[in-house]
């Protein structure tokens, strides 16, 4: 099988993230992990949908959700997905500086999203929706909270990479790392699109 020394270029390859066996392993393994994460979020979404009518005289979706706020959050996260795409395109172009720039943009947008989410949770709590208020509240916080934890982890992960590799240039080692981090970020966005539809829009509309 292709050992690492088989790839002898230190010239920029067309896909630096999968130019080495290590890189290909990371790429494939991370995708498979995302396949598992799909079931993980499926379980949480299913639990939420099963329990969303169980408000136990507490506040329900229609009393709480600020659709406009969540709409802005969705826009922010979608945009952060685009900035991370641009980062990878620039990585393939060999522009380390632009890679870092676009990635920092992703981090900042992610932090903004998280800020809105914290505000949202705080607001719901003020309106009387504690974690243990009802089955609905527990399932809601578990689902959206798990997503928020993923966002937080993504921000910390990408920031670590950005600081660690601020001066290194693009290498065969860090290109796969940036690429997996971006895949993770897209996945978070995919999940959010689904949460936006199923939790918020259906919460108000259905």
């Amino acid at each position, binding site marked *: 099988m292709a050992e690492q020394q088989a790839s002898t270029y230190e010239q920029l390859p067309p896909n630096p993230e999968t130019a080495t066996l290590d890189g290909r392993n990371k790429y*494939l393994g991370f995708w498979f992990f995302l396949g598992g994460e799909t079931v993980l979020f499926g379980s949480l979404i299913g*639990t939420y949908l099963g329990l969303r009518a*169980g408000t136990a005289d507490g506040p329900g979706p229609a009393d709480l959700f600020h659709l406009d706020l969540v709409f802005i959050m969705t826009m922010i996260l979608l945009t952060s997905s685009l900035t991370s795409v641009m980062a990878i395109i620039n990585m393939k172009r060999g522009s380390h500086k632009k890679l870092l720039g676009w990635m920092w943009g992703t981090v900042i947008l992610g932090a903004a999203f998280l800020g809105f989410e914290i505000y949202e949770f705080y607001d719901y709590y003020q309106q009387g929706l504690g*974690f243990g208020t009802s089955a609905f509240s527990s399932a809601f916080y*578990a689902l959206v909270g798990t997503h928020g934890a993923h966002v937080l982890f993504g921000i910390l992960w990408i920031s670590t*990479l950005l600081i660690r590799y601020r001066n290194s240039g693009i290498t065969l080692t860090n290109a796969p790392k940036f690429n997996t981090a971006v895949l993770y970020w897209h996945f978070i966005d995919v999940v959010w699109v689904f949460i936006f539809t199923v939790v918020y829009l259906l919460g108000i509309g259905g």
Partner: protein
Amino acid sequence: MSTAQTGSKNVIWDWLTTVDHKKIGILYLAGGAFFFVLGGIEAILMRIQLMFPEFTFLGAQTFNELLTMHGTTMIFLAAMPLLFGFMNFIIPLQIGARDVAFPFLNALGFWLFLFGGLLLNVSWFTGGAPDAGWTAYVPLSSESAGQGLDYYLLGLQVSGLGTLIGGINFLVTVINMRAPGMSMMRMPLFTWSSFVASMLILFAFPALTIGLLLLMLERLFGGQFFAVDFGGNVIIWQHLFWIFGHPEVYILILPAFGIFSEVIPTFAKKRLFGYSAMVFATLIIGFLGFMVWAHHMFTVGMGPVANAIFAVATMAIAVPTGIKIFNWLLTLWGGRIRFTTANLWALGFIPSFVMGGVTGVMLAVSAANYQFHDTYFVVAHFHYVIIGGVVFGLFAGAYFWWPKMFGYRLNETMGKWFFWLFLIGFHLTFFVQHFLGLLGMQRRVASYLEGQGFGDMNFVSTMGAFLMSIAFIIFLISIFTSKKNTENVNDPWDGRSLEWTTTSPPLHYNYPQTPLVRGLDAFWLEKYEGDGRMKAAEPLGDIHMPNPTILPIVISLGLTIASFGFIYLVYWLIFVGLGITFGAMFIRSVKEDHGHHIPVDEIKRDLEEG
């Protein structure tokens, strides 16, 4: 990037920091064997309690804890790690690779499993083990007093994470690390079935993760998922548990099927009958394994149409399984069969497992299931498939691969005693339990009354359990008394697949030159159409290998500390534990480790010695 060996001379440190798939395989086997003995002792204690009506050997609470821990230990901490041990050791050898795709994660998976298992068992010493059965149904589990169930939740969460990591690792290893010429349809069946089992792990374990998370939030942080008076629903737990739990039994049985598919052709001296049918049957079993979970829930009231759909889907699994059984029989048909211990286990497996399969179809009839549900009939069924399938497979694999792994052959005479005593003991223990169930003895009861007519059969059952224990002790003794059988260990069985082309035990880089695979049963092909040696796919050169590291243990230890913090709700402990874990992950991410190269001179030296 150094070319020097960075390994330390200290043996213990060497094992603690190893990322070698063979050493990790052995660690898995050792850890799994430890928990297997523990689970066996728990079983024997329960059987003693049930030996006589209204016996007072154990209290009911202790009995509940034993039955919970027996099931949990045997499934999560014994059967799966033992299979992982074989998978770790054998898969890279069978596909002609020098290591797995993620050596670091491989080590991490092992240590997470071990620490999770130990964490679970700490509960015995802290005021009571979990007592709600291995299925931990709510509200029994959400209302269970004490910390036992919290140990269950955190212990399984930690070890489950390790399993998920291991599963992804095997998937990528099989896809990316195969030797030149080793196409998917030339892979040995053990690798194939482990590959499918790894897929099941990937999709099944996240459901368990969420189930455990919800139950933890419910028990420790006031969640209301399962609290009916707050709008919760108890069936949600059952779904999440069985969406994981049913694929789990296929995760166990598929690698065992793979072992039999290696053992039977080797000892029948014939190629496996219907190789591609076997591969597709494995894939179909894997797929259907996800479509049938609700047959564990026929009696909860999902409704007749739902029950019927799941019943039919369940019965459908008998078809691919039947294909496999017939293929094994036809492999044996007309073969020059050698009755070695490894093959005896495979031959004993076929009728034993079929009996378990037949009761499985009976249980799948949802109307009849109302009668069988929660009786000893179910207990008999799943022990027939799990012992008759998985445990027999583990023993077959142990006798088959022992020379490869440890460089000596296990004593065949003792092996045959072990086989026959265990086989008789097994059927004695569990055959009568079918009838106990049909007579109405419920599972998970700590005792029964004098006049119920359960006494004789329970006594027989306990005697069988003793016989199995004696047989297993013979096996343990033979491990230590067989050490001198070191001649003819490289290829003792006239093997067919690549692992038999290496030395026993293999060099730590497995293959000095990556082999070139020219067909199915690669080694057999070279024996009969070549010169009996594998062709090399590359010139002799430096070999790149990963560096040992202590970080996997540190990460696992951090999670274990954090788990104690969760169990006793000590917040600073949670932060300390997670701090250690994330700190170690941070170091791993920031400190690049590119491994080392073994210089070609050293490889030449090894070759001259070997």
